């Protein structure tokens, strides 16, 4: 990157390091930090949405919907996320392509599944094979988000379901006494109050989510851990201007600091959020805040 980097073998110490840390490959790693953060930022609300829908479905009066929600939350939570990631993305991708295939190529006669092979007509490919690389990468990214959201949505559903039940019964009874419909009571009374009960569980889930990002490379997204492994490995002078031994320890140490920092920041933010949510709530925490204020 710098002008003095043309022949790194002559450099030493910090100048060498400044060149080494600014190679294109290192920038790929820095970029992956952003990718991971963006992924977390998109996954969290998506998973919350999945969880909320499933929790609502679990309270529904329609039996099949309840069954579906129950099956979803319990099966997905029973499976280690790593096992899920190892086959789920391909399944998801094939599912989408199969649906598109049914719509776009109704008169296709050959079998879609031939042994292990999965062949759909060209226009049903997702993304189209002529699409530029960034489209493929974006598509892969969204598949990863979707997979993460499905897994963590199941956990979130459980937390939210518990939180809905934790809202004092009296609140709902009062709502009924005011003549609110079931729907009104749900949206106006239950949902605003449940968050304070849900937040500790959700923040815990957020911490688990942060720490599962190393599994992203299984989903085909190049994350920080992928690059740390690659960059840290022994590099021979034949293939790079910056040969070095096994430096994985240093890279993983940097990762450790990154994850600890992310955890710390999250803890502080979530603590603040909790304080704010507790305000005016009919809980022990809310009561303590009220007393402190007066």
């Amino acid at each position: 990157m710098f002008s003095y980097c043309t022949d790194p073998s002559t450099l030493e110490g910090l100048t060498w390091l400044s060149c080494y840390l600014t190679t294109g490959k290192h920038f790929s790693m820095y970029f992956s930090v952003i990718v991971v953060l963006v992924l977390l930022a998109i996954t969290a609300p998506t998973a919350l949405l999945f969880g909320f829908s499933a929790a609502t479905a679990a309270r529904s009066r329609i039996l099949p919907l309840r069954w579906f929600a129950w099956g979803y939350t319990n099966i997905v939570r029973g499976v280690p996320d790593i096992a899920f990631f190892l086959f789920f993305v391909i399944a998801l991708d094939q599912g989408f392509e199969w649906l598109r295939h049914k719509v776009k190529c109704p008169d296709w006669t050959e079998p879609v599944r031939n042994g292990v092979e999965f062949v759909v007509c060209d226009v049903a490919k997702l993304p189209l094979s002529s699409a530029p690389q960034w489209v493929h990468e974006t598509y892969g990214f969204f598949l990863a988000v979707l997979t993460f959201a499905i897994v963590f949505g199941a956990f979130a559903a459980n937390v939210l379901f518990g939180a809905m039940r934790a809202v004092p019964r009296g609140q709902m009874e009062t709502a009924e006494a005011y003549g609110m419909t079931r729907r009104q009571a749900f949206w106006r009374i239950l949902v605003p109050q449940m968050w304070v009960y849900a937040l500790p569980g959700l923040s815990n889930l957020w911490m688990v989510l942060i720490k599962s990002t190393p599994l992203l490379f299984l989903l085909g997204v190049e994350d920080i851990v992928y690059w740390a492994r690659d960059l840290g490995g022994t590099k021979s002078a034949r293939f790079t201007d910056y040969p070095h031994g096994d430096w994985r320890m240093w890279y993983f140490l940097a990762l450790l600091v990154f994850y600890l920092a992310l955890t710390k920041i999250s803890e502080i933010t979530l603590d603040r959020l909790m304080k704010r949510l507790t305000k005016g709530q009919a809980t022990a925490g809310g009561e303590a805040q009220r007393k402190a204020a007066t």
Partner: protein
Amino acid sequence: MSCLETIQAYAFRSLGYGERLLPRGEYTLCEQFTLIGSGMIWNAYFGIFALISGFVLAVALAVGKASPNRWLRKPAEWFIFIFRGSPLFIQFFFGYFLFLSLKGVSSFFDPFTSAWLGALVVLFCNTAAYSGEIFYGALLSIPKGDIEAADAYGMTGWTRFKRVTFPTMMRLAWPAYTNEGIFLFHATTLVFFSGFPAKRQQGDALYYANYFADKTFNPFVPYPILAMYFILLTLMIIFVFGLFNKRLNRHLPQAARPKLKFRLNLIR
């Protein structure tokens, strides 16, 4: 080979008994079920021993973190922060690295570079940190009245801890601790995947599932089998923890006994 013979040959393959060579060529469903099930022995081994040993340290960490003495509090806080704040696979990496260098110091550390002990130590520290935080949260939410009542009976120190503080803490923490148990068993799949080397093709369930996926190039059979085994295991964990929960709450009036709810709990 009939399915029964397959089971005889491979049921304890993960421990090194039975057929020496892994199946080749055909890869029947029966073989996949048997071998992946055989691998579950390791998952159960890591999970059970880490959970039991981690429990003791977790209680100590919780008491330490709640202690007014900073020499006890700070180490406990840091231990919990480091192990809760970093991904497990990084802990495995550094654990393996550490044991390798310790091996040069003393031959006492020789077995630590094998998964059966080394990975167990890492999982032990990991679950102790997570459970310690859960117990700490429970410790803080013990009703004031309980402690006051103990004081009124003249209980102090160890007696009060054993009779009042500890049982109440357990009762409050149990639902969250159940979740930690489930997570821990799930985490055992990482041992051979990104942590420790597998010896003589003796690995855990994911190792064998991976083997079949690699040989058949079809991930849609072995991984769902693995998932099925884990759902069964999870149900078993929930059942066993439920028994403990019943016992912890046996003094409460029937109606007030909280049923164990399986959610990521409010405390953790």
